């Protein structure tokens, strides 16, 4: 039995743990305001908000309900558009803003946008115009062309400027400003009443599911016939910590939690910009860092980043643990070096040194939130003007992401110069064998190598080397 608070009511269901939560909401609860647009988390029409208790507050996040396994709703507050509607057909100020600036046409995507913005209001994210726009980046609209939506979003952002940041005060403010219905004042109590500690099931045959964002896209039908071992909410697997000069990330740490981490931001200042290219807020709020590795995608953006951060995985099965460098983990197209039910329990990488540089590049068909054609990450240290400890990880060029070892060997100990770049590119080109769209990918490898190096030494390279 899975229990959760849906809007203002406690709900129980016997549906299978891997049922997409949208089906529970729409079919069983008849809450049809949440729409199904793609069933792969790419359109945002199914956006809901999930809240979980953390200490004395509820952490609310937007999620793509079409790829959220039901079990991950356990003991949470699940909010659908019906749950933010005011009684008596009144409109809340977010809904009013959408109408005022004509940001509504066919209306199919609209509840999703409104839920993303409501999640933004509920979140701790700083209320800036750019953050407000970013909050709806995972919602597509085919009718309006977005200009009116931008206006509505910015209006809502203005409205939120006066909102207090402390949780209880914030909820009170949102309720008193008619952005949320009054039952929100009582949700914490309801959640406390169904609070449950989850732990790993002893069932070694069960399929491990974390965020579910890959599993529910790739094999939704099969999952419904399997036993599920859900790890998303197991406390021991959550969080990011610094220990022994290393950054440790738990198996259930979401991409969002990872990039909100202040320690990470200190060492990889542009992490949030990079992640904006990678996935939508809804997916970042659900997907785990470890899941990106487990998927074994040849273009995994996070896998590329972590590969050049010298990452090690801690794998566990039946209480037995082993460690494996990430570089040995990817063995073939979507094939990884672990047993089926072996869990990536932890991930760690050494804290980058003060003189370290890290950069990420990605080219895809659409600039934001798209699968990479080629993606790459570079980390290196500058020691008296020379590159040391160069690591280049690249994706999109074969069955797995990989290190560019020969190119790295060459670059070690060199200064950044036109000559260095030209030679490095020759080596890199010899090191790769792209299969599809080969010319384009070779070109992208050259360009990305250039961009990485120029990012470190902006004046050392001239565009002439590309001609």
């Amino acid at each position, binding site marked *: 039995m899975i229990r959760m608070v849906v809007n203002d009511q406690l709900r129980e269901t016997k549906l299978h743990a891997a049922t997409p939560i949208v089906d529970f909401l729409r079919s069983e609860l008849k809450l049809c305001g949440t*729409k199904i647009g793609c069933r792969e988390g790419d359109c945002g029409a199914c956006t809901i908000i999930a809240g979980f208790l953390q200490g004395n507050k509820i952490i609310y996040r937007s999620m793509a309900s079409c790829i959220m396994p039901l079990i991950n709703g356990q003991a949470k507050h699940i909010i659908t558009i019906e749950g933010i509607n005011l009684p008596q057909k009144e409109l809340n100020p977010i809904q009013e803003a959408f109408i005022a600036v004509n940001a509504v046409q066919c209306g199919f995507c609209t509840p999703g946008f409104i839920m993303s913005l409501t999640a933004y209001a509920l979140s701790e994210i700083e209320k800036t115009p750019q953050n407000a726009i970013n909050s*709806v980046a995972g919602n597509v609209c085919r009718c309006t062309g977005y200009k009116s939506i931008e206006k509505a979003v910015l209006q809502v952002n203005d409205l939120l400027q006066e909102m207090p940041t402390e949780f209880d005060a914030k909820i009170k403010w949102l309720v008193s400003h008619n952005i949320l219905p009054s039952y929100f004042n009582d949700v914490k109590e309801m959640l406390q009443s169904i609070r449950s500690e989850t732990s790993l099931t002893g069932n070694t045959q069960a399929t491990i599911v974390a965020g579910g964002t890959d599993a529910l896209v790739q094999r939704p039908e099969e999952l419904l016939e399997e036993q599920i071992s859900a790890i998303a909410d197991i406390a021991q697997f959550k969080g990011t910590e610094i220990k022994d000069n290393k950054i440790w990330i738990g198996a259930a740490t979401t991409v969002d939690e990872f990039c909100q981490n202040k320690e990470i931001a200190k060492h990889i200042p542009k992490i949030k910009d990079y992640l904006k290219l990678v996935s939508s807020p809804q997916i970042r709020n659900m997907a785990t860092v470890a899941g990106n590795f487990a998927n074994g995608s040849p273009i995994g953006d996070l896998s590329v980043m972590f590969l050049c951060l010298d990452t090690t995985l801690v794998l566990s099965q039946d209480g037995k643990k082993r460690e494996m460098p990430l570089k040995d983990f990817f063995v073939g197209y979507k094939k990884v070096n672990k047993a089926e039910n072996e869990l990536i329990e932890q991930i760690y990488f050494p804290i980058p040194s003060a003189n370290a540089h890290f950069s990420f590049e990605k080219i895809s068909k659409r600039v*934001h939130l798209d699968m990479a054609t080629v993606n790459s990450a570079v980390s290196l240290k500058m020691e008296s003007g020379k590159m040391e400890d160069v690591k280049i990880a690249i994706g999109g060029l074969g069955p797995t992401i990989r290190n560019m070892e020969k190119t790295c060997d060459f670059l070690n100990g060199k200064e950044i110069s036109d000559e260095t770049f030209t030679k490095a590119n020759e080596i890199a080109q010899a090191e790769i064998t792209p299969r599809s769209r080969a010319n384009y990918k070779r070109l992208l490898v050259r360009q990305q190598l250039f961009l990485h190096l120029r990012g470190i030494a902006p004046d050392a390279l001239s565009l002439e080397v590309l001609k």
Partner: protein
Amino acid sequence: MKNIDSKMNVRGESLYLDDYPVKEGCLHAVVYGSPVAHGRLKSLDLSEAKKMPGVVAIFTAKDIPGENQIGSIIPDEPLMADEEIHYKNMPTALVVARSEIEARRAIHKIKAEIEELPAIVCPREAKEKKKFIVAPRTFKMGAPEDLWDKCDHVFSGTADMGGQEHVYLETQGSYASYMEDGSIRVQSGTQATSYVQVGIQKVLGLPQHMIEVETIRLGGAFGGKEDQGTPWACLASLACYHLKKPVKLVLHRLDDMRMTGKRHPYAFDYKIGFSKDHKIMAYEVECYQNGGASADVSPAVMERTLFHGGSSYFIPNIAITVYSCRTNLPPNTAFRGFGGPQGMFVLEAAIFKAAHELGIDASVIQEKNLLYEGSNFPYGQIAWNCDAKKSWEQLHQECDVEEVRQEIEEYNKTHQDSKKGMAIFPLCFGVSFTKTSLNQGFSLVHIYKDGSVSISTGVIEMGQGVNTKITQVASDILSIAPERIRIHPTNTTRTANASPTAASTGADLNGKATQVACTQIKDRLIKLAAKLLNIVDCTRINLQNEKILLDGRATEIDWNHLILQALEERVKISELAHYATPQIYFDKTKEKGHPFAYHVYGTALLVSKVDCLRGTYEIEKAHIVHDFGKSMNLDVDVGQIEGALMQGIGLMTIEELLYNEKGTLVYDNLSSYKIPDIFCAPKEVIVSPLKSKPNELALYGSKAVGEPPLCYGIAAYFSIVKAMQAFNSKMDLELSAPITHQKVMETIYQKLC
């Protein structure tokens, strides 16, 4: 007035097909699509699939009691593959189960034995093999073939334009119920209730009155549900007919993308000749339309390519030929613009190429050759109230084009990594169905005893705000509050034989019919009021704000009272009105006539910035002067412009519709086929109404606005190419849309890698 649906929309209360409450025992259907693009179906083994849990029945072409035929223009489209398979994922069997997931599981157990035949995916290849959907057609004016020697400059070349997936956010679907008398009631996600009704009639062999089709609203359609809402309704009805149970069929996004047709990809060969002073003297173009496996609406799309092949220009000697080519792709279909953008693109490409060769800016040629008052279209219609030059000039007044050009030049001089480009696009789009008989609309208006009003028309609301405009019409004529008016779902029992909601004509045809109906009722009410007030001269009576005025002064009679009296006095307060666009005709034997009620003009200027290191781009600015006539609702109409612009930009830039040589759609889901997101929107969009006259054939003088502005997206393409040229002036000028990031990269570095 704001869109009347918007309150329900923002509360998530609007019902779309998948939200309708279903009857108990409702079954769910999933379509099995053929695994190959072309072949002979030897056998279909359903035995294992039938044994799967929850499966109730599996239907194939053999179970069709009527005709296995749903082609709306030409009868060349089987509902389900029988002996031959014409495209990959062609519906071949229908699994009906207690739940969708059970039906989906059973699909995987179906085994088809197929003798695979070579597939044709390229329209040029189909043309070589003379595989045509209909015979080629040519629109001709003057004699371009005699002019080439007299031209000072002649250029020729090829161009390509890719197709586009609709990505309506709501996928296709239908829900069919079996009624007591054996009739079928279908709720359908269609733009054309009557097409669905006719389709089911053919497939089930039932008379049309036994089939009721209803549509509340669509979560986007853009043409994709004009003809292609029909198969899913027919399939659901087929199962419902046999099982006598309600059946729901809603396509999964993957099935929707793989099974349905798209905007037609085109290939072109062109030749264009100029005088010394850059007047276009002659233009010839051959267009190869990729029609897919069956006609669908391809012949009509082909027609609009012919009509818009001259775009916004007067070209005295012109010949436009279109080959509608049959290939092994899903039948390509209507999509906002409907062949128009393709015809316009190739001419812009020819002009761009010529300008490049001549060392001038394309805008020099564009401006010199704009249509003018009284000039001829190649199809015989004369350009009256022609605002091509006016919109060009208004754009230049509002936006200092020279200054923009200089700013761009300055930017390009000072920036090496990124370059900017600008392009202008003049628009001329004809409004009316090119098939004259479709230009009719119906409206059924009832006034009830309490004074509330119900309106049913043949139009489908899909976000374009047409029901809002119809509410405005009724509210204005009857002079009552909009809240008194309710627009009913579109239903074949209330409006028979409705034309599809397409060709941007929905508001004109159905709004005008509503205008007629309301006016007739109003006339009777005024007569009644005159009688009640003992007045002989009805012109002294008027309705205003729910009051009856005599000589402009309020009387004691209000709307409610008047309606009660009408019933008392046995005055008819219902009306079914019909509207047929006057003046239009077209003679296909001569390819001449007056097919359009009017034309919509406009001019757009777009500025793009290309990141020359990454091959990516953004649209910085779009300034559009658009001919609304006299807009009756700018809230709705500006939204249409902005949305169409973005869709047009998507078409010309990032949206890559790709089939491999086997006829498999390569990017077949929303994670690989990318439509514009919020970051793709131009940084600045200015939409400015053209100072033009209202057109009497447009509803309230407010010109149709659905499709024309999509064509402004063409300027995005050329602005990006201009920016690319600023980076590499020697690059090859291959004019092939969309200009994907890959094409940008490969083109600007082509001499180098």
